[in-house]
């Protein structure tokens, strides 16, 4: 049996968890296993879980676990796994999913494979994980009675595939006080900034070639005309030309606009990790051999300080 950790918001499983269930079903098709789910949440999740192929839902509704506590959650999962002996424990590749699974691994003296894209479940399990910020696949071998896996983000679509019934079983873990030594004390709601780098249909990115914070002026102007949002590579945030929250890259925002206009950005893999899900990439760069051109759809060779104003003028004239 494959056991999937579900995270939820407002009484509904979140999208990464539903994607994880889609992945679990493709794995179950190889192994012939059933899919069960576990959540730190109410019975009412069962309906949506049934729609996504879960035949049994283990609800852990202990009041003290409702505020996230990594170790307490992990101890609970381990106790449940010891009881029902799943072949796989699979979690979303979220901040919590990865953290809890690392603890489950530590508690069980087992290895965890994170960022999983694919599993070939033969005699020994060959797992493909995303590595180097998504630039490489890494193939690993696991030989454990319980495989501990977390998902690569947005690797599969969250699709429905209902089963007839999803039983709900309540599980009550035995927890010591010390497992709550890292627990969320309070939660500040995210600030709604309107259109963000993550949601904008057009993103304009500046890199080293922009040269200064003033240099971003023309990018801002183009952004306004195209109703887009302006971000920067890590060079620009490290030099203080842009705030860190505007960083596009592996360690900043991961964007997926209809068009990404990359100005003066060479295209280090850490930057590409943040923008490769763009539908189209237009590059403006002085270097015709810039690595970013081998990831882009369109290129203009030359100085962005001349080309971007020319584009703005052309748009105004047309």
């Amino acid at each position, binding site marked *: 049996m494959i056991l999937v950790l579900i995270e939820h918001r407002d009484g509904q499983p979140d999208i990464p968890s539903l994607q994880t269930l889609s992945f679990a079903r493709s794995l179950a098709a190889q192994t012939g296993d059933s899919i069960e789910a576990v959540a730190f949440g109410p019975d009412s999740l069962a309906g949506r879980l049934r729609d996504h192929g879960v035949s049994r839902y283990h609800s852990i509704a202990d009041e003290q676990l409702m505020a996230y506590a990594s170790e307490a959650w992990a101890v609970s999962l381990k106790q449940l796994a010891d009881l029902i002996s799943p072949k796989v424990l699979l979690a979303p590749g979220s901040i919590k999913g990865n953290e809890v699974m690392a603890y489950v691994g530590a508690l069980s003296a087992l290895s965890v494979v994170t960022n999983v894209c694919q599993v070939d479940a033969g005699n020994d399990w060959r797992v493909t994980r995303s590595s180097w910020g998504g630039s490489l696949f890494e193939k690993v071998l696991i030989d454990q009675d319980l495989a501990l896996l977390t998902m690569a983000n947005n690797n599969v679509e969250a699709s429905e595939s209902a089963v007839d019934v999803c039983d709900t079983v309540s599980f009550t873990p035995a927890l010591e006080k010390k497992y709550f030594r890292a627990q969320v004390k309070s939660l500040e709601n995210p600030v709604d900034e309107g259109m963000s780098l993550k949601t904008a249909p057009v993103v304009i990115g500046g890199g080293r070639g922009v040269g200064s914070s003033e240099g971003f002026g023309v990018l801002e102007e183009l952004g306004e005309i195209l109703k887009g949002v302006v971000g920067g590579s890590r060079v620009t945030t490290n030099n203080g030309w842009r705030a860190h929250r505007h960083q596009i890259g592996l360690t900043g925002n991961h964007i997926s606009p209809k068009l990404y206009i990359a100005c003066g950005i060479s295209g280090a893999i850490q930057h590409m990790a943040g923008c490769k899900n763009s539908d*189209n990439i237009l590059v403006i760069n002085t270097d015709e051999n810039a690595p970013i051109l081998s990831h882009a759809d369109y290129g203009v060779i030359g100085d962005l300080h001349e080309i971007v104003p020319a584009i703005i003028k052309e748009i105004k004239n047309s």
Partner: protein
Amino acid sequence: MNILVCIKQIPDVGGKIKLSEDGRDIDSTNLGLTISPHEECAVEQAIQLVKAEGGSATVLTLGIADSENQLRDSLARGMNKGVLLHTEISNWNANQIAHAITDTIKKMETDNGSFDLILFGSESADRGNAQVGILVAHALDRPSVNGINGLEIAGNIALIKRDSDEGTENYELDLPAVLSVKDGMNLPRFPSLKGTVMAKKKPIQFIEVQPDDTGIGFLKFEPTPEQSKQAVILGTGPEAAADVVQVLKKLELLR
């Protein structure tokens, strides 16, 4: 305040990763080494905390002899001393790395007293397993939060902020604690010329280490499919603006 920061040196690959013939290593011929942005912020945090609270900041890495350069770079920024867990064997997995670091920390703490804080980057820029900090925290029986965006020390308590999908989480952890830092928590300084000169005289302890037989079996790397695309060059210089506008219209971003 006694702080240990663990960093990992990786090849500075630039725009394209070249693999060795058997796919088990990055072909790092002609490549420099660097560390992950997360770890640069961990180093910066340690330097700021020691400046404010007094004490000492140690930087540790596990890697080949050349990794000494990454330690010297951290020392040039203001860390006080370095530890190099030396191995010429590549592809250590997260469990092997965590075991070697834990063993070293235990020995160091027996000799010099406990670290108040042990900092990691939230994930390495190469394999990105995002586990070593937690494995070390568990082995040392200390509280831990992975991927933090803010840290303040109030007496014996670490006040922590972490951004999750739901919003910003606030934690209060008793020290000693193990924390993994996310890029953007601070603006890492660059090494100064004076710092670089001084770093040459700062102590680095060399310890030989071997991987144990735990963890996941690594097979090989493979390139991802989208690595070979070639852009259509619309033109050179400002004259290309009209063609750019055509593209914007084609994508229905302009009418």
